[in-house]
C-alpha cells in the first residue's frame, strides 16, 4: 500500500467514523505509516478501548465572515455527564486492502447546549442532545463509483437506548428509547471536478421509539421519569417504522452569496412504513413509496429578508411524489384508503409577487418565552401539487394545489404560565408571527390525472377545508403531552386570522388557457379569532378522537362576495360567533359500507322492494362523528350568535364601515337536553348536536336535466344517465337505458350518509338593529326540539 493510500485511509476513516458516530475515538488515533500497515496486513488487527469524554466551549463555522457557533459541546456518558463513554474499536486491513472497523460505543451522549449566530449573541436556537449505544461494522475499500480515486464503504449498526432531545429554557421534548437497525452497503464517495459525489444505493433499516416525552422540570435532562417526583414523564405516543431507500447526493462549495454549500440530492423511497401509537392504538401509514429531487439547496450564514442574522437554507426546487398505500386507524388496523401526492416547490409569481423557497434559522423563538428557542423565517412557493385519495379503488384527485407565503414560525418548549403579555401552556409551542399566506385548488379530477378538470372542490367544506384561502395569521398551537387518558396530545391554541379571503365555492384558476382571476363565492375581508383550551387528541381503539375542553371563535366576514374575491359585489357582512364546551369529534375508518339509498331495508332485496338502490361502498372510507355542545352565552365574546349586516356607511374610498348599517342578529344560540335532570338548577347540556357523516368515493347517478346538447356538446335526452366512456370524445356519453356494464361506469363522486340529532336547540332572541333606532327584538325566543335528520346524498363534481 502506498503512503498516499494510507493517508487517504486515515482521513477517510475520520469522515466515515463521523457518520458512524465515532469521531472522538478517531481523534485519538495516530496515522499509520506504510511500515506499520505492512505489519498489520493479514493480522487480526488492532483493538482500541477508550473512555471518551470531551468538552468544548464553542465549535464555530464561518461563511463570508459570518459565524454560527455550536456552544457547550460535549461528549460524555449519557447516564453520568462527568464520566466518559466507553468505546471499543477493532480495526484490521483485509486482503483486498479494505479497512474494517468493528465498533461498540456504550451509553454515549453528544450535546450542544446552545446554537448561536455570531450576529445575534443574546439569543440561541436551544440545545440538542443525542444519547445512544451503538454496535456496528464499517468497511472501507479503495475505489468509488467513478474509479480508483474514490471510496466504497459498507456500514451496518444497531442502536439501542437512544434518546434525542430538544431543550429550551429548561423545558424539553425528547424521543425516548430509540432502537434502530441500519444496513447501508455499497455506498461510494467520489470527487468529480469540484463536486463531491455520495451514492447510497441501498439503505435499509427499522426503528422504534418507546415514547415522545415532555418535561417542564429544569432538573430533568434526558430522563424518562421526573427526577423530583419519580413519575414517568407524559408522552405524546410512540413510533415504529422501517425503510428501504436509495440516495445520491452532490456537494459543492459556494453558497447563494459567496461562501457556503450547494447540495443536490435524489432519493427514492423503495418502501417504508410509519406507525404512530397512542396507548397501543395505531395510526399507520403503510406501503409507502416515492421519490424526490432536491435541486440547488444552498446553505449560508447570512441575513433574512429583514436583515436578521440567520443560517439560510435556500432552495432551487424540490419535486417528487409520495404514495401511501394504506392509512390505518384504530386497534384492528382498518383502512381509510390510500393517498398519493405529487409536488413541485419552485419559484413562482403569485398575486403579482415573486415567491421562493427558503428557511432562515434564527435563535430566540417567541420573544417572551426566554432566550432559547427557534425562529424559522420562512418563505415558500408550491408551484403545483396534485393530491389524490383512493377509496376501494375509486380515485379522486384534488388537482392543481398551489400555495405561497412568507413569515415567521417560532418553536419553543414552554411551561404553563404568563410571561410578559403572553400566556404559555405546557408543551411544544409552534408560534406564527406575521405570516401572509395562501393556497388554491384548481379543481377535481376523477379516475386519473388525464381526466377532465371538473368543479366540486367546495366538497372539501364538509371536512372544514376551503377550496382557496388567502390570509394573514398570528398566534400559536401548543402541543402538550398526554391525551384524554394516557398517551396522546393536549392542544391549546389561539389563532388570529386577518385580511382573509376564503372561497366557499371556487371556479378553476386555470382552465387550460392560462391563469385567470378565480371566480367564486368568497368570505372576504375576513377576520377570524379562534381559541381552543384543553383539546385532547387520541388514537383510540375505534379511530381518532378529539375532545374540546372549551373552544370559542368569532368569524367576521366583512363582505361575502360573489365573483371576484376583492371586487365582486357583496351580500353584506356576516359574523358567526361560536362557543362550545365539551364538544368532540371522532374519525373512524370505513364509510357507509352497504347502504340503501332512496329506500329502506337491511339487504338488497328489501331495499329494492322499497324503491331504493342497494349500494356496497366497500370497507374503506371515512366516518366522522361530531358532538357539538353549544353553550349558553357567558360574555360578548364567548357565545353563539349570527349577525347579518347590510346598508353600511361607506368611507371616502368606498369601504363599508362595520356596525353602521342594519343588522339581523340571532343572539345566544345554545343546545340543551330539554330540562334540569340533575337538579343543579341549570338545564343539562350533554347531548348537543350529534352528527355522524360517512363519506365514500363511489359511483353516483347523474341524470341529464334537459334534452339536447350539454355544456360540452354531448347530446342526450332528459332523464338519460351520464356514463363514463373513454372512447367517447368528452370521456362520457348519455344512456337512456343503462346496461349493467354502464352502471358500473357511472361517474365517481362523494357518497355521503349523514345523521344529525339534537334534543333542543334554542335562540334566545332575534333582533333587528337599525343604526339610529337601535335594537328591536323581533322574536322573543325560538326552541327547536326532538330533531333526527337522516340524509343519503351523493355529490358529484361537474365540468
Amino acid at each position, binding site marked *: 500500500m502506498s503512503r498516499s493510500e494510507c493517508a487517504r485511509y486515515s482521513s477517510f476513516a475520520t469522515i466515515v467514523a463521523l457518520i458512524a458516530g465515532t469521531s472522538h475515538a478517531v481523534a485519538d488515533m495516530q496515522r499509520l505509516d506504510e511500515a506499520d500497515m505492512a505489519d498489520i496486513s493479514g493480522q487480526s488487527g488492532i483493538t482500541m478501548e477508550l473512555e471518551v469524554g470531551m468538552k468544548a466551549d464553542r465549535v464555530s463555522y464561518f461563511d463570508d465572515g459570518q459565524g454560527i457557533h455550536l456552544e457547550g459541546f460535549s461528549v460524555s456518558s449519557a447516564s453520568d455527564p462527568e464520566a466518559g463513554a466507553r468505546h471499543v474499536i477493532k480495526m484490521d486491513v483485509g486482503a483486498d486492502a479494505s479497512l474494517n472497523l468493528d465498533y461498540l460505543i456504550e451509553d454515549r451522549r453528544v450535546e450542544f447546549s446552545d446554537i448561536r449566530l455570531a450576529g445575534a449573541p443574546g439569543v440561541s436556537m436551544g440545545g440538542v442532545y443525542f444519547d445512544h449505544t451503538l454496535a456496528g461494522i464499517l468497511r472501507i475499500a479503495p475505489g468509488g463509483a467513478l474509479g480508483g480515486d474514490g471510496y466504497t464503504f459498507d456500514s451496518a449498526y444497531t442502536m439501542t437506548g437512544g434518546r434525542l432531545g430538544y431543550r429550551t429554557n429548561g423545558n424539553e421534548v425528547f424521543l425516548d428509547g430509540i432502537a434502530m437497525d441500519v444496513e447501508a452497503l455499497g455506498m461510494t464517495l467520489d470527487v468529480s471536478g469540484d463536486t463531491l459525489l455520495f451514492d447510497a444505493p441501498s439503505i435499509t433499516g427499522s426503528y422504534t421509539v418507546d415514547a415522545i416525552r415532555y418535561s417542564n422540570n429544569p432538573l430533568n435532562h434526558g430522563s424518562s421519569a421526573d427526577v423530583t417526583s419519580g413519575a414517568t414523564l407524559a408522552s405524546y405516543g410512540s413510533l415504529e417504522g422501517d425503510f428501504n431507500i436509495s440516495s445520491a447526493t452532490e456537494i459543492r462549495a459556494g453558497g447563494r452569496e459567496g461562501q457556503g454549500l450547494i447540495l443536490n440530492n435524489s432519493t427514492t423511497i423503495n418502501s417504508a412504513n410509519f406507525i404512530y401509537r397512542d396507548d397501543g392504538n395505531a395510526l399507520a401509514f403503510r406501503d409507502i413509496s416515492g421519490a424526490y429531487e432536491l435541486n440547488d439547496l444552498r446553505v449560508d450564514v447570512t441575513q433574512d429578508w429583514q436583515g436578521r442574522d440567520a443560517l439560510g437554507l435556500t432552495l432551487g426546487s424540490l419535486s417528487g411524489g409520495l404514495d401511501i398505500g394504506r392509512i390505518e386507524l384504530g386497534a384492528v388496523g382498518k383502512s381509510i384508503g390510500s393517498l398519493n401526492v405529487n409536488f413541485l416547490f419552485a419559484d413562482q409569481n403569485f398575486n403579482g409577487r415573486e415567491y421562493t423557497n427558503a428557511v432562515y434559522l434564527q435563535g430566540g423563538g417567541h420573544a417572551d418565552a426566554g432566550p432559547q428557542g427557534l425562529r424559522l423565517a420562512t418563505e415558500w412557493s408550491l408551484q403545483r401539487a396534485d393530491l389524490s385519495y383512493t377509496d376501494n379503488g375509486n380515485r379522486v384527485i384534488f388537482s392543481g394545489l398551489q400555495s405561497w407565503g412568507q413569515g415567521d414560525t417560532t418553536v419553543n418548549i414552554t411551561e404553563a404560565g404568563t410571561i410578559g403579555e403572553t400566556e404559555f401552556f405546557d408543551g411544544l409551542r409552534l408560534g406564527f408571527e406575521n405570516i401572509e399566506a395562501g393556497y388554491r385548488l384548481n379543481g377535481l379530477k376523477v379516475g386519473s390525472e388525464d381526466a377532465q378538470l*371538473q*368543479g366540486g372542490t*367546495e*366538497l372539501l367544506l*364538509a371536512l*372544514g377545508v*376551503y377550496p382557496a384561502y388567502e390570509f394573514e395569521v398570528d398566534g400559536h398551537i401548543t402541543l402538550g403531552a398526554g391525551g384524554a387518558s394516557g398517551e396522546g396530545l393536549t392542544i391549546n391554541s389561539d389563532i388570529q386570522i386577518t385580511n382573509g379571503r376564503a372561497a*366557499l*365555492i*371556487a*371556479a*378553476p384558476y386555470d382552465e387550460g388557457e392560462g391563469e385567470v382571476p378565480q371566480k367564486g363565492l368568497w368570505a372576504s375581508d375576513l377576520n377570524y379569532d*379562534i381559541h*381552543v383550551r384543553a383539546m385532547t387528541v387520541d388514537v383510540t381503539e375505534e379511530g381518532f378522537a378529539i375532545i374540546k375542553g372549551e*373552544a370559542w*371563535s368569532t368569524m367576521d366576514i366583512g*363582505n*361575502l362576495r*360573489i*365573483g371576484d374575491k376583492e371586487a*365582486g*359585489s357583496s351580500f353584506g*357582512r356576516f359574523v358567526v360567533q361560536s362557543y362550545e364546551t365539551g*364538544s368532540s369529534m371522532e374519525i373512524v375508518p370505513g364509510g357507509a359500507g352497504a347502504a340503501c*339509498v332512496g329506500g329502506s331495508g337491511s339487504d338488497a332485496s328489501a331495499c329494492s322492494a322499497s324503491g331504493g338502490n342497494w349500494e356496497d361502498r366497500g370497507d374503506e372510507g371515512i366516518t366522522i362523528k361530531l358532538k357539538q355542545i353549544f353553550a349558553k352565552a357567558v360574555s360578548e365574546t364567548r357565545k353563539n350568535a*349570527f349577525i347579518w349586516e*347590510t*346598508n353600511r356607511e361607506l368611507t371616502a374610498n368606498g369601504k*363599508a364601515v362595520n356596525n353602521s348599517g342594519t343588522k339581523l342578529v340571532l343572539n345566544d344560540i345554545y343546545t340543551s337536553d*330539554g*330540562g334540569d335532570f340533575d337538579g343543579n338548577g341549570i338545564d343539562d347540556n350533554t347531548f348537543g348536536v*350529534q352528527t355522524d357523516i360517512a363519506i365514500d368515493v363511489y359511483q*353516483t*347517478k*347523474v*341524470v341529464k*336535466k334537459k334534452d339536447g346538447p350539454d*355544456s*360540452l*356538446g354531448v347530446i342526450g335526452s332528459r332523464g338519460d344517465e351520464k356514463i363514463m366512456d373513454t372512447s367517447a370524445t368528452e370521456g362520457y356519453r348519455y344512456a337512456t337505458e343503462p346496461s349493467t356494464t354502464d352502471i358500473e361506469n357511472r361517474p365517481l363522486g362523494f357518497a*355521503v350518509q349523514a345523521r344529525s*340529532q339534537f*334534543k*333542543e336547540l334554542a335562540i334566545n332572541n332575534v333582533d333587528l338593529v337599525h343604526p339610529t333606532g337601535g335594537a328591536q327584538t*323581533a322574536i*322573543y*325566543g325560538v*326552541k*327547536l*326540539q*326532538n*330533531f*333526527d*335528520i*337522516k340524509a343519503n*346524498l*351523493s*355529490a358529484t*363534481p*361537474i365540468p
Partner: protein
Amino acid sequence: MNFRTYSSGVLRLLSVLALSFPGTGFGEMAQLDDGDLASVSGQGGIYLSGDISINELGGPVQNSYFGSCADTSKKCGARLAYRLKEGGGWMVLDEIRGKFSFEGLTLRVRAVDDGFAGDGQLFNRDVLEIGLPNIVRYDSVEFKLAASSTARPTDPGFQQTDIIAVEMQGDVILEGNLLVFPTGNP
C-alpha cells in the same frame, strides 16, 4: 383548531343565502338552456342527489310528550316554537316528519354576460346558480301548526291548540335555475 366550526358556519351561511334571495333576479330572468350555459365561463360545480328524512322513527327525546313513532300515545315528530311578544304565547310547528328526495340539484358560481334576449349582456354580473332538480318527491311530509302556552310541551301549565294539520305526498316540479346575487348597499 376548530375546523368543524368553519364548515358548520359556512353551511349555515349558505342556507340563509339561499332562503334570503328567492325573488332577487329569479323573477326577472328566463330559464337558461344548456346551450346558454356553454357560452359562460367560470364553470364547474357540484351535482347533488339524494334523500333527506326528518324523524323517520322518532327523535332523540324520550319523555312524557315525545317518544318513538311506534308508541301512539307519544309525539314522534320534531317541534319548532317561537314567540313574537315578550311573555306572550308560542307559535308552534309540531310533529314535523317526512322524507324529501331529489335528483340533480346543482350549485355553481357563474358569470351572466350573455343570453336572456340581450338582457344578460346588460346584466353582466356573477351569480350563484342553484340548478333546481326538476322533481322533488315528498313522502309523508307532515306537520301541525299550533298555538302553545309554553315553549316546551313538558313545561308546567302547558296547553296547546292545534290550528291546522298539513300532509304532503307526491312530486313537486321545480325546473330551471335559481340565481342569487346581491343588490343594494352591502
